[in-house]
């Protein structure tokens, strides 16, 4: 099970700041995970916005990065400072 975090306004959309998800076979990259979750939450593209960055295990990554069941994957809307 991958651990998925939703920061900022994204947690309003997903209803939780974090969850654990069994990755389906169709999801092997960060980009594919976006597509899968955007559909699952009926987010109408909110998780696909290029300003929403993805981090895998605390490192920002491109959508082509591989994701696995042992990863912590964070969806991060634009950071606004403190």
């Amino acid at each position, binding site marked *: 099970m991958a651990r998925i975090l939703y920061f*900022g306004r994204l947690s*309003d959309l997903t209803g939780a700041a974090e969850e654990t998800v069994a990755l389906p076979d169709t999801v092997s990259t960060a980009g594919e995970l976006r597509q899968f979750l955007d559909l699952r939450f009926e987010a109408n593209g909110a998780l696909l916005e290029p300003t929403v960055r993805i981090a895998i295990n605390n490192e920002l990554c491109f959508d082509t990065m591989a994701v696995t069941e042992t990863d912590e994957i*964070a969806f*991060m*809307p634009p*950071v*606004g*400072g*403190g």
Partner: protein
Amino acid sequence: MLTVTEGPLDASALLNEFEKTAMGAGAIVSFTGLVRAEAAAGQVKGLYLQAYSPMTENGIQAAIDEAKTRWPVPNVSVAHRVGEMMAGEAIVFVATASVHRRAAFEAADFLMDYLKTKAVFWKRETTDQGEAWIEPRADDYADAERWAKSSD
């Protein structure tokens, strides 16, 4: 020194602590940022600030390291509050010490620009109009850009 904490920040106690570590400095600058009572959406009741550890701390530490490269500021202290807080409470404290005052001022200013625009935080304001996640202000970005090197 870097602290990210859910507890309240006491700026004068933090300054007092910092002074002890900065023996020999000629100049100490402190900055305290407080939760504003007035926002675009109305009267602020509370603020919720969310961090992502250790990414948030790593980013702030990188900014501190960058400040130490750019200015002769051997002593730097940053304390940032996260979680729920109320209008009027301190949200961030930065202190810098240097032999000369220009370095201390500029390094503190630089760090605050990082903390207000680029630091890994998300914030939600509660006003009399309700709750809203808030985005960085355009002039915050303009402030931070003052520090861009030509090679950036």
